């Protein structure tokens, strides 16, 4: 008997042995198979990259054709409008701070001009703070 023939006969014996498995083992294998099948990966499980501000397929209302110029314009506007609003917000906050600063200095100057404060007082570090406190009262 040559090697291949012997291997073939051993293979037959192994197949028979596999068919004669203990009932408990066969049951556990069947259970493992059912669990595995329940967790089968499907293409839907694969994460799909969706560009920002773009709706996922089949979600939300029906939208115009993506290739149309209206849709393209809306998509661009969806990015540009929030950025524009953010820029306007920054400018507004900056201007408001500036005006507050100017008003504060004007009040301070006015207080100094109307008062007969000694000239040395102007060099005092806490003078400005004192004026602020007085104005607050």
């Amino acid at each position, binding site marked *: 008997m040559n090697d291949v023939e012997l*291997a073939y006969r051993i293979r037959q014996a192994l197949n028979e042995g596999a068919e004669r498995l203990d009932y408990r083992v066969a049951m556990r294998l069947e259970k493992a198979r059912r*669990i595995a099948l329940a967790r*089968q990966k499907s293409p839907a499980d694969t994460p799909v990259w969706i560009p920002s501000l773009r709706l996922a397929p089949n979600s939300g209302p029906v939208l115009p054709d993506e290739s149309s110029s209206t849709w393209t314009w809306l998509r661009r506007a969806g990015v540009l409008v929030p950025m524009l609003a953010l820029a306007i917000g920054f400018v507004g906050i900056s201007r408001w701070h500036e005006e507050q600063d100017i008003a504060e200095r004007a009040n301070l100057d006015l207080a100094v001009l109307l008062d007969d404060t000694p000239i040395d007082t102007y060099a005092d570090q806490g003078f400005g703070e004192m004026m602020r406190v007085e104005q607050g009262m």
Partner: protein
Amino acid sequence: MATREELGDFLASTERRAFKQAVFALRDDDSALDVVQDAMLKLSEHYGDRPAAELPLLFTRILQNSIHDFFRRQKVRNTWVTLLSSLSGNRDGDEDPLETLEALHGTEAAESAADQAERAQVIRIIEEEIKQLPARQRQAFLLRYWEDMDVAETAATMGCSEGSVKTHCSRATHALARALQARGITL
């Protein structure tokens, strides 16, 4: 991609052989079941969307890797067990080959027909002799002759050259022939 039915049919057709291969390597039914279940889950969760034709090779590789992983974990565990048992003074050598043999004899279901009993005996002896083969020889023999892989696929799965596969298979076959002859088994 493989449908649920195709995956189910494939697993049903291969699970018993996979279990036996794991038993030959691990020599423990429960550990083998864990390894096979782990391999099934990995195949289904990570490769369940692959074409049905790719499943056999993928599953074979996953199973072989799972068996290797088990041995790695066991090696780490054994290191700690040896360390702790040496501290507590327990007996050495917690694995007795005769116990495995007795357990196998004990689980055999009694069969009425004499020829069936004899055939079962032959199968058990063959399985015992396959367990006794060196790991690489056993792996090459089973992949090549039981899983029907060609030499190139077997080499890729085992991570060795095709020449090594041929050598392992040849040595395994000769070792089995000698062992079976010594035990009076003629196939």
